[in-house]
């Protein structure tokens, strides 16, 4: 079953980031090998004035949609300003909303993110906010009209996997919009785990970009995401903490 976010249908549930690669050419090869249909691009990295920005040039493929992100801004006001310029220059109203006033751990600011999301939705953007795995915030953003929520698995770039698993599973359970696990995914098994849990997609960057062979890493993620989703749809038997009693405790009800 394919994934629908706003007006777009995705066959791949793997989204990729485009930073940190050793060259734009290798980035392009990894993107194509991953089968992804949505890649995020940092607005600060691209030249909005130039028509032939080198990074964007490498992403011009019919299957690839661009998701500009606001990484680097510290306030809602700055995010809205950057988003409007991006919409004009890149001709897309899709936006990955990232507001992290903390440049060290790049922790998303919940207050400013909600404020910006409300504004951007009103301005007609398809907003995908990057957030902490905070179920209340996810619901508030859903109420504000975002197209999906993107909770972090772990601190960005940490490769630590789904440290926020318990909270992500609450978000998945409660959400009426797609849930994309973003940040912290450091191995294909982490991606598979997120999909098995019922996440609608994952976004990966560092783990692919910094791998010795980014193209093979991209392929591994492609397979992991397919496997994870298939497992979710198959309805795997849940693991259980308690042993099943061998003689049923309610057998007496059917006894004469």
């Amino acid at each position, binding site marked *: 079953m394919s994934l629908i976010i706003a007006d777009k249908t995705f066959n791949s549930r793997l989204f990729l980031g485009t930073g940190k690669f050793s060259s734009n050419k290798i980035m392009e090869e990894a993107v194509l090998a991953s089968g992804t249909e949505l890649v995020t691009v940092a607005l600060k990295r*691209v030249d909005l004035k130039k028509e032939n920005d080198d990074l964007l040039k490498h992403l011009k493929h019919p299957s690839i949609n661009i998701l500009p992100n606001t990484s680097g801004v510290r306030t809602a006001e700055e995010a809205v300003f950057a988003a409007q310029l991006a919409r004009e220059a890149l001709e897309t109203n899709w936006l990955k909303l990232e507001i992290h006033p903390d440049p060290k751990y790049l922790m998303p600011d919940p207050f400013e993110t909600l404020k910006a999301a409300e504004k951007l939705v009103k301005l007609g953007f398809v907003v995908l906010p990057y957030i902490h795995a905070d179920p209340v915030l996810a619901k508030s953003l859903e109420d504000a009209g975002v197209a999906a929520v993107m909770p972090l698995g772990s601190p960005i770039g940490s490769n630590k996997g789904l440290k926020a698993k318990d909270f992500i599973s609450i978000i998945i359970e409660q959400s009426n919009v797609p849930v994309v696990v973003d940040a912290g995914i450091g191995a294909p098994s982490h991606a598979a785990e997120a999909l098995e849990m019922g996440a609608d997609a994952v976004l990966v960057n560092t783990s692919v970009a910094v791998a010795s062979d980014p193209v093979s890493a991209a392929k591994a993620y492609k397979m992991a995401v397919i496997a994870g989703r298939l497992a979710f749809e198959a309805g795997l038997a849940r693991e259980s903490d308690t042993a099943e009693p061998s003689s049923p405790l309610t057998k007496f009800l059917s006894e004469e």
Partner: protein
Amino acid sequence: MFLDVLEKYDWNKIKQDIYSKTEKDVLLALNKPKRDLEDFKTLVSPAAFPYLEQMAKLSNKLTQKRFGKIIQLFIPLYLSNYCVNECVYCGFNCHNDIERIILDEEQILNEVEAIKSYGFEHILLVTGEAPSIAGMEYFERVIKLIKPYFALISMEVQPLEASEYIKLKKLGLNTVYIYQETYNKESYKKFHGKTKKSDFAYRLHTPDRLGKAEMHRIGIANLLGLEDWRTDAFFTALHLKYLEKKYWKSKCSISFPRLRPHKGSFKPEFSISDAELVQLITAYRIFDEEVELSISVRESRKFRDNVVKLGITSMSAGSKTKPGAYALNYNALEQFEVFDDRTPSEVVDMIKSKGYEPVWKDWGYYMQL
């Protein structure tokens, strides 16, 4: 303010700590998931020196994880070499008999044109300290003038007030570099005579003022050559941690200004070898995975080529340290002698040959209001 923190530490005691670290301390520090200031002492200690290759490998891994396989590029634009200070180690020293220049708007635009032809988007504005000639009014004018041409504007000038930093930030300033030169109060006095710069505390509190102004990035450093580098590095690291924790919205950057030959007669009393500088760079990275580490053209080609993989995240290229030198394309007297005099495109080719992406642009006027 940072002086209160600094005064809790005794220079000689710290130095003694560093020099008495053992191999056991080194192994412990290298194998921890996160390192504290005590570990930093170990990492810069003589005991860690035999572990340089291991430190380099770890630094390489940690840097790639955080920053990726990229190197950011910037170029300094020297606006003025007027200076009221008499820093014995600097070519701009007011007693040095050099031609003094301050660029006017037309000259600046000529420089900008030359710089832009190389491809730069990140620019560093530099002046000596002469507020009556190159002061706030001049800085405001220059930033307004060059803003349309650059994605990121940095500055390395005399210390300013927080309110002045706020003003310049609103005009588009992103980063301020301010080096304490040395954290040893007595040595600081010795090197800075009776000039304006001799106020140790005022200079020391510049990053505090920058933090209060919520400057996007604050660059700090100690000069390598004024004091025992290991001990000075500890205090720089202490300053770094203080800033990161207190002014959490500002990014921090560390530079490695190693004293080079210049006009004047100063011979550094404390030297640092190439291998020791590698130890220092990798020690910072292992200690702080998120801090930006920057290297200038003061260093040799060979050294710069090889530190691309060792933890450095940004470098200057094609720098000329005499005001007006880009447009006129001359290389005469400078603040310090440039060691790596390759053109920007040669540096770009070198970075690519190392398997790294040279990044010209990592900011934009639309990123800060």
